C-alpha cells in the first residue's frame, strides 16, 4: 500500500477517527464552510463530502487536498508548502492528495470552475491555502490552550509540535479531535514573509511525490485494475470529421480475449480482457469510414492558404500610431514570415480513463484537468444526476495542455464506452501513442507575417499579421477568452510587446479548419514568442544594436520586470554580444507569459550533421514570491527541454488531412544528449506568486534561432528547425 494507493486514498477520506478537517474557500461560500469540522463524521459516513483542504490524522500527518491536478508541475508540493508554512508543520508530516470534483468547494478562483491551466495553481492558492493552514493552526492552538488551561497567545508551534512555556508539549494529532469541534476562524492572520520557514527557502521542502515515482509506486490511471474490468481501445476515423459508415467485427471477435465490439460516438470500441487482445482485436477490425465531411486539406495546402490570408486585412488585435503609413515611407521594409506546424502534446502517459457504474451511480477515475465540465459530461451521457457521479482525479503522466479539454472528448468517450457495454462492466479506455499523435487537438498551425522598419538605430514601425485556428471560437469557453471577436490565446504576446515602437499594428485571422486544436504548454506564446523575439532581434541587427542592450533600450521604463530578467540573464551569462566565439554563438529572448517573466540566453553551435547543438541555457525568471525555488528551477529546466525539443524537431504534418507522424520514431522528442546544461536564477520578489509550468517554454526557441542567426544560418522561418524524421 502506498500513499497513492487509490483504495487507501478513498477509504482514508471516509475513515480516521479523531481527525480534523479544515475547509476554507471562496468568501461567498463561507456559510457552507462554517460547519466543515462538524460535518465530518469520524468512523465513516458514506454521505460525507470532503469539503475541505486540510485533514489532520490522529498520527499527526497533515493531508492537503489539492484541487489542481498533479502532472509534474508540482501543485502537491506547492500547496502543501503553503499550508504547512501557516500551520508551522514539519515537512515530514505533510501529504497531498487530489480533492474530489466539487465545483462549490474546489473551483479554480480564476476560472469559476474546477480546473487546472494557465499556470494558475500557486497563484490561485496563494491566499487560499495559507488561510486554510492558518485556520487549522488557530484551531489546534485553541484546542491545546483549552486542554492545558493556558491562554492561546502563550502557545507556540514549531515543526508540528505545539508547546507552552510550562513545558507542555503536544502533537497535531493529539488535538485534532478537540480542534474539530471548534468554530473555523473567519479570517485567520497570516504570517509576515519575514517569518517564513518553508516558503522560498532553499532545501526546506522536497517534492512529496519523488520517492514513489522513483520506485514505480505512483498510481496513474493506466494502472487501475478492477475485478471484471475491460480494457477498451477505440478505432477512430483516420481523418478529422470522419464518421463510421459501417464495420465488420467478425475477425475481431475471434481474437482470444476480445469480449465485445460496439460503435460509440468517437468510433468503434473494442472491449477486451487486457490491452494486448484489445489491440489485436482492433488491428483486424474492418471499419468503413464516411469521410464526406472530413477535413482533407494537408499542411502544405493550409500553409499556402494562410500565407495568402496574411496579406489580407484581419481583425485588429493591437494598434497604435499608423504602422502602414510608417512602413510606406520607410527606406527599407524588413519582412519575415514564420510558419509553425501543428504540434502534439504527447504526454508520456497517453490519454486514458476508468469508469465503473451500476446504472444508478458512477465513479470515474482519470487525470481530469477540467473536473467540473468533465463531471457534467459524464453525468449527462450516463443519464445520471451529477451527485450520483463521483470523479476522482488521478496523477497524470504529463499533460502539457492535452488533458485540459475544451471539448471534454475523453470524458465523453469514457462515458460512451461504459454506457455502450452496459452497467457493471468497469471499463478502462486507453489510447496508444499512435492514437495520441493521430488524435488531433494539436497546437494549431500558425503563420506570422511581420514587417518592420528601422531608422537612426531604432525600430520605428512594426506590423504583424497572424493566421491560425482558434480553439475557443464556438465553444463553451468562448466567453472566457474571446473579446471583440479576438481569441486572446491566438495573439497573446504579439498584440502588445515590450518594445516601444511608435507605429504598431497586429492583425489576426482565425480560419476555419476541421482539425481539432488545443492549447499547448504556453499556448499562444509558443508561436508569438518565437515570431516577436526573432523579429525584434532581426530588426535590432538591422539597426546595428546589441540584441540585449537594444531590447533594454526599447523597453523604456514601463516594463521593469521584463528588463530585470533580461539584465539578470545577461549578468549570469556574462553577455558580451552574440558572437560567435570559437564556433559558438549566443541568442537571447525574453517573454512574459501567465504573468511571469522569463529571459533566456542560449549558447549554440552547428553540429557536423547539420543539427544545432545547444550547449548551455541561462535562464532568469521572475514569478513573484518563489514558493518552492527548486520546483521553479525544475519547471524552467523542463520548459526549456520541452520548448527546445519541439523547436528543433517537433512537427505533426497532415497529408490530405491525415496525420503523418505515428509514433516517437517520427515525432522526434528531445533526448538526454540533446538537453543543454541549464542555469536558473530566480529573481527575488515580494509580488504575489505567478505560474512556472508554462513560462519556461516560450523563450528557448527564439533564443536558439537568434544564436543560429549569429552563426550565419539565419533565423529559421519555418519550425521545426531540423525537422523530425519523415
Amino acid at each position, binding site marked *: 500500500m502506498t500513499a497513492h494507493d487509490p483504495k487507501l486514498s478513498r477509504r482514508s477520506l471516509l475513515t480516521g477517527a479523531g481527525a480534523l478537517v479544515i475547509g476554507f474557500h471562496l468568501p461567498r461560500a463561507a456559510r457552507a464552510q462554517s460547519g466543515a469540522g462538524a460535518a465530518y463524521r469520524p468512523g465513516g459516513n458514506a454521505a460525507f463530502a470532503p469539503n475541505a483542504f486540510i485533514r489532520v490524522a490522529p498520527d499527526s500527518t497533515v493531508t492537503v487536498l489539492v484541487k489542481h491536478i498533479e502532472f509534474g508541475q508540482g501543485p502537491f508540493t506547492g500547496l502543501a508548502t503553503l499550508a504547512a508554512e501557516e500551520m508551522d508543520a514539519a515537512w515530514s508530516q505533510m501529504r497531498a492528495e487530489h480533492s474530489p470534483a466539487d465545483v462549490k468547494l474546489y473551483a479554480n478562483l480564476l476560472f469559476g470552475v474546477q480546473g487546472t491551466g494557465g499556470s494558475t495553481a500557486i497563484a490561485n492558492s496563494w491566499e487560499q491555502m495559507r488561510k486554510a493552514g492558518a485556520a487549522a493552526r488557530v484551531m489546534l492552538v485553541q484546542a491545546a490552550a483549552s486542554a492545558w488551561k493556558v491562554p492561546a497567545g502563550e502557545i507556540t508551534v514549531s515543526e508540528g509540535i505545539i508547546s507552552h512555556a510550562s513545558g507542555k508539549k503536544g502533537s497535531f494529532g493529539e488535538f485534532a479531535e478537540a480542534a474539530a469541534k471548534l468554530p473555523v476562524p473567519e479570517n485567520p492572520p497570516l504570517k509576515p514573509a519575514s517569518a517564513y520557514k518553508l516558503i522560498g527557502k532553499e532545501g526546506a521542502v522536497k517534492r512529496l511525490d519523488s520517492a514513489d515515482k522513483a520506485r514505480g509506486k505512483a498510481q496513474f490511471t493506466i494502472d487501475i485494475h478492477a475485478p471484471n474490468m475491460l480494457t477498451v481501445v477505440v478505432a477512430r476515423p483516420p481523418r478529422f470529421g470522419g464518421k463510421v459508415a459501417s464495420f465488420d467485427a467478425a475477425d475481431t471477435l475471434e481474437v482470444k480475449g476480445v469480449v465485445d465490439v460496439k460503435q460509440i460516438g468517437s468510433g468503434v470500441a473494442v472491449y477486451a480482457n487486457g490491452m494486448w487482445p484489445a489491440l489485436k482485436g482492433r488491428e483486424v477490425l474492418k471499419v468503413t469510414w464516411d469521410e464526406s465531411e472530413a477535413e482533407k486539406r494537408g499542411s502544405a495546402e493550409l500553409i499556402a492558404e494562410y500565407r495568402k490570408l496574411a496579406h489580407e486585412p484581419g481583425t485588429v488585435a493591437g494598434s497604435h500610431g499608423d504602422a502602414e503609413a510608417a512602413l510606406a515611407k520607410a527606406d527599407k521594409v524588413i519582412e519575415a514570415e514564420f510558419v509553425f506546424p501543428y504540434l502534439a502534446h504527447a504526454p508520456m502517459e497517453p490519454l486514458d480513463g476508468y469508469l465503473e457504474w451500476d446504472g444508478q451511480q458512477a465513479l470515474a477515475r482519470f487525470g481530469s484537468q477540467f473536473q467540473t465540465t468533465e463531471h457534467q459530461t459524464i453525468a449527462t451521457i450516463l443519464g445520471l444526476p451529477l451527485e450520483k457521479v463521483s470523479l476522482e482525479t488521478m496523477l497524470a503522466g504529463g499533460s502539457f495542455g492535452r488533458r485540459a479539454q475544451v471539448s471534454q472528448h475523453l470524458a465523453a468517450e469514457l462515458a460512451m464506452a461504459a454506457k455502450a457495454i452496459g452497467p457493471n462492466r468497469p471499463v478502462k479506455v486507453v489510447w496508444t501513442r499512435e492514437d495520441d499523435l493521430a488524435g488531433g487537438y494539436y497546437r494549431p498551425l500558425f503563420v506570422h507575417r511581420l514587417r518592420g522598419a528601422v531608422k537612426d538605430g531604432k525600430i520605428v514601425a512594426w506590423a504583424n499579421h497572424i493566421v491560425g485556428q482558434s480553439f475557443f471560437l464556438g465553444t463553451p469557453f468562448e466567453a472566457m477568452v474571446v473579446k471583440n471577436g479576438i481569441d486572446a490565446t491566438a495573439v497573446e504576446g504579439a498584440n502588445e510587446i515590450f518594445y516601444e515602437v511608435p507605429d504598431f499594428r497586429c492583425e489576426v485571422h482565425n480560419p476555419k479548419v476541421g482539425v481539432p486544436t488545443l492549447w499547448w504548454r504556453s499556448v499562444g506564446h509558443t508561436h508569438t514568442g518565437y515570431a516577436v523575439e526573432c523579429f525584434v532581434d532581426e530588426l535590432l541587427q538591422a539597426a546595428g544594436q546589441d540584441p540585449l542592450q537594444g531590447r533594454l533600450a526599447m523597453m523604456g521604463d514601463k516594463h521593469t520586470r521584463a528588463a530585470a530578467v533580461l539584465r539578470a540573464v545577461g549578468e549570469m551569462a556574462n553577455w558580451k554580444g552574440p558572437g560567435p566565439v570559437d564556433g559558438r554563438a549566443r541568442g537571447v529572448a525574453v517573454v512574459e507569459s501567465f504573468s511571469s517573466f522569463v529571459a533566456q540566453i542560449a549558447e549554440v553551435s552547428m553540429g557536423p*550533421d547539420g543539427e544545432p547543438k545547444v550547449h548551455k541555457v541561462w535562464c532568469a525568471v521572475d514569478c513573484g514570491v518563489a514558493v518552492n525555488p527548486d520546483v521553479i528551477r525544475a519547471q524552467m529546466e523542463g520548459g526549456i527541454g520541452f520548448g527546445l525539443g519541439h523547436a528543433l524537431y517537433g512537427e505533426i504534418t497532415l497529408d490530405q488531412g491525415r496525420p503523418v507522424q505515428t509514433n*516517437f*520514431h517520427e515525432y*522526434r522528442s528531445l*533526448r538526454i*544528449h540533446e538537453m543543454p546544461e541549464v542555469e536558473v536564477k530566480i529573481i527575488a520578489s515580494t509580488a504575489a506568486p505567478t505560474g512556472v509550468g508554462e513560462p519556461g517554454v516560450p523563450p528557448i526557441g527564439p533564443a536558439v534561432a537568434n544564436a543560429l542567426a549569429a552563426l550565419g544560418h539565419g533565423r529559421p522561418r519555418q519550425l521545426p528547425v531540423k525537422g523530425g*524524421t519523415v
Partner: protein
Amino acid sequence: MRTALLSAAAGVGLCIAGTALTLAQSASQSQPGGASLRPVGSFSNITNQRDRSVALFNEMGKVLTHPRCMNCHPAADRPRQGDIRKLHEPLVVRGKDGHGAAGLHCSACHGKQNFDPARIPGDGHWALAPASMAWEGKAVAQICEQLKDQNRNGSRDLAALVRHVTTDTLVLWAWHPGRGREPAPGTAAEFGALMQAWADTGAACPAS
C-alpha cells in the same frame, strides 16, 4: 577487436545449430517485396574469367549496398535504420564489442527474432559490423577489396566468407527483415551462389 570478432563468430556457430532447419528452409525463399538478383548462370556468357568475376561482384554489390546491409555497416559509430536510411533513433553506437553501449545494448530492443507488431527487427546476435568492415560511403570496388582483406574481415578466407554469408543468421536476416522493411535483392541462396561463383572465378574486384 579481432578477439571480440572471433568470439562473436563462435557465438554465431551455436546460434546456427539451433536454427539450421529454419534457415535451410528459408534460404531459397525471401520475404516478398525485394528486387531480384541475376542468377549465376546468366553470367556464363562472359568468357573472360576476370571480367565474369567482376560482373558477379557487381551483382553482389546490389545486396552489399542495400539498406539491409549498409545500415549496420556504418562509417562512423552510429547505425542507420529503415529503407530511407535515417540515423538510428535512439542514438546507439557500436560500443566495445559491436553490441552497443553500456546500459543500452542492441538487445535492449532487438530480440532473437523480428517482432512484427512493433516492426522491430531481431536476430540471435543483432550487432553492428566492426569498424574495419564499415561500408558506408564506399564504392563497390572498395567494399570488394575490404571484404577480401583478412586484416579487416575477421581473418576469413574466401571459403569462410562464403560460409559466413550463407550461414550467419544476421546476414540471412537481410532477406527476412520483417514488416515494414524491404528485403535485400534476390534470395540468400542466390547471393551465396553468386559469391561462390565469384570466389571460384578468382574473386576479382571491380576497378575503383
